[in-house]
């Protein structure tokens, strides 16, 4: 009798989260969501890291008022929840007569957040490069900018790979927040399908899509962490 109870509970679990007919019906919608998620994620990673590196390099010139602004920008974006920024930008901007699509808002906000964290990481990397490297580069006739770009930054980047990878993964996962402003990413597609079908199966499909998408990156991040670990002397 106990066995029957276990079997029916298992059957019920499968019936709730893995209904084959619904999996077939909604896999197209989820696949479309996967494409949108990948597009936003790719754009965010490229924009966020590029802007973050640019800010860290600007900070290296140590121009007081500029650096003050950079520090304020970084602090504010590290203190605010991304969802607050997303809601504020998406629902606030129309009051100024400019409407941005949910896709663009998600891209902009997450890129700005990633840029703030990336700036801090790159800056720590730049600071960790020995002063002798600067002196040697300058003594060969490099200008400050050349020394920064060709000698210091390449060495700094090696140190930043591990923390930057982890931070990038964490922020890229925030693409799911796009659901709140109607971006048709995985979670949004899954959630819509759930309310149409009256079943939790599409939600489980969405979760599995995310796992398939991110597990390789998380595992790669773990490998990178041991390969490029900060070596404290």
């Amino acid at each position, binding site marked *: 009798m106990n066995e029957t109870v276990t079997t029916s509970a298992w059957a*019920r*679990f499968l019936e*709730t*989260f893995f209904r084959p007919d619904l999996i077939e019906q909604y896999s197209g919608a989820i696949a479309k969501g996967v494409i949108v998620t990948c597009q936003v994620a790719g754009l965010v990673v490229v924009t966020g890291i590029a802007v973050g590196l640019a800010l860290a390099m600007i900070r290296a010139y140590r121009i007081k008022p500029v650096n003050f602004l950079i520090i304020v920008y970084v*602090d*504010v974006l*590290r*203190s*605010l*929840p*991304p*969802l*607050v*920024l997303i*809601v*504020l930008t998406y*629902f*606030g901007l129309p*009051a*100024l*007569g400019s409407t941005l699509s949910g896709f663009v808002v998600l891209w902009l906000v997450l890129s700005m957040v990633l840029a703030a964290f990336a700036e*801090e990481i790159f800056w*720590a990397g730049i*600071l*960790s490069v020995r002063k002798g490297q600067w002196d040697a580069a300058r003594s060969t006739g490099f200008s400050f900018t050349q020394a920064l770009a060709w000698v210091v930054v390449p060495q700094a980047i090696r140190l930043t790979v591990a923390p930057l990878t982890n931070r990038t*993964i*964490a922020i890229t*996962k*925030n*693409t*799911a*927040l796009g*659901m*709140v402003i109607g971006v048709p990413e*995985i*979670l949004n597609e*899954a*959630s819509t399908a*759930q309310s149409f079908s009256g*079943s*939790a199966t599409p*939600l*489980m499909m*969405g*979760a599995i899509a*995310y*796992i398939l*998408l*991110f*597990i390789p*990156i*998380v*595992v790669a991040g*773990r490998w990178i962490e041991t390969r490029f670990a900060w070596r404290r002397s």
Partner: protein
Amino acid sequence: MDRDAVRVAAELMNEIYLSFFNFEIMREALPLLLRGLVVTAKLCVAVIPLGIIGGLVLAVMSQSNSRSLRIAVVVFVDLFRAIPPLVLLILIYSGLPFAGIDISPFAAVCVGFMLNNSAYYAEIYRAGIESVDRGQTEAARSTGMSSAQTMSYVVLPQATRNVLPDLLSNTIEVVKLTSIASVVALQELLYAADMARSLTYNASPIVLAAAIYLLILWPVVRLLSMMEHRVGN
């Protein structure tokens, strides 16, 4: 023509003031937002200790002699680092009722955050434990301490000190993350602000919520920045 530019700029400033920094609306929304802040505080008090304890248990398990236990911890940690917290939260909150389990928004957030946060805290504690010299364990064991005593009186205190900046940084992320509870209609700070926004058709309550988050988290972010730079040197 210059006068036109000045007029346009003045109108824009006025528009920004009325739509984002409308003090009249902010004053009306403040009591609602403060009630939301209390819920956010309660959430933090519940989920931060849950995450830290969960992470600590996982980190200690990851040092076990049993290979299968160590692999189980890695699978758990990577799985919950791959699923976006919002996806997990919605799967729990909207999915479980289909399996006949009704769950309150508060409990759903606690369960989701426990799974997600303990994965992150576990990675931090694991790095901390591994940063403590093996000689410490050997010396403690040779004085007659059991391995549990060694872990709790010798290894963990040093491990915690070594990863204090990372623990603080993750805790800031957890506080910010509580804003996603608004999606499952838990009436925390962002939910309250968004409700005020839809009642007044004005984004000022969201700006006020952002200001509250900033007021609370900025000092912590500054402190963290100082700690990180001290460790860096």
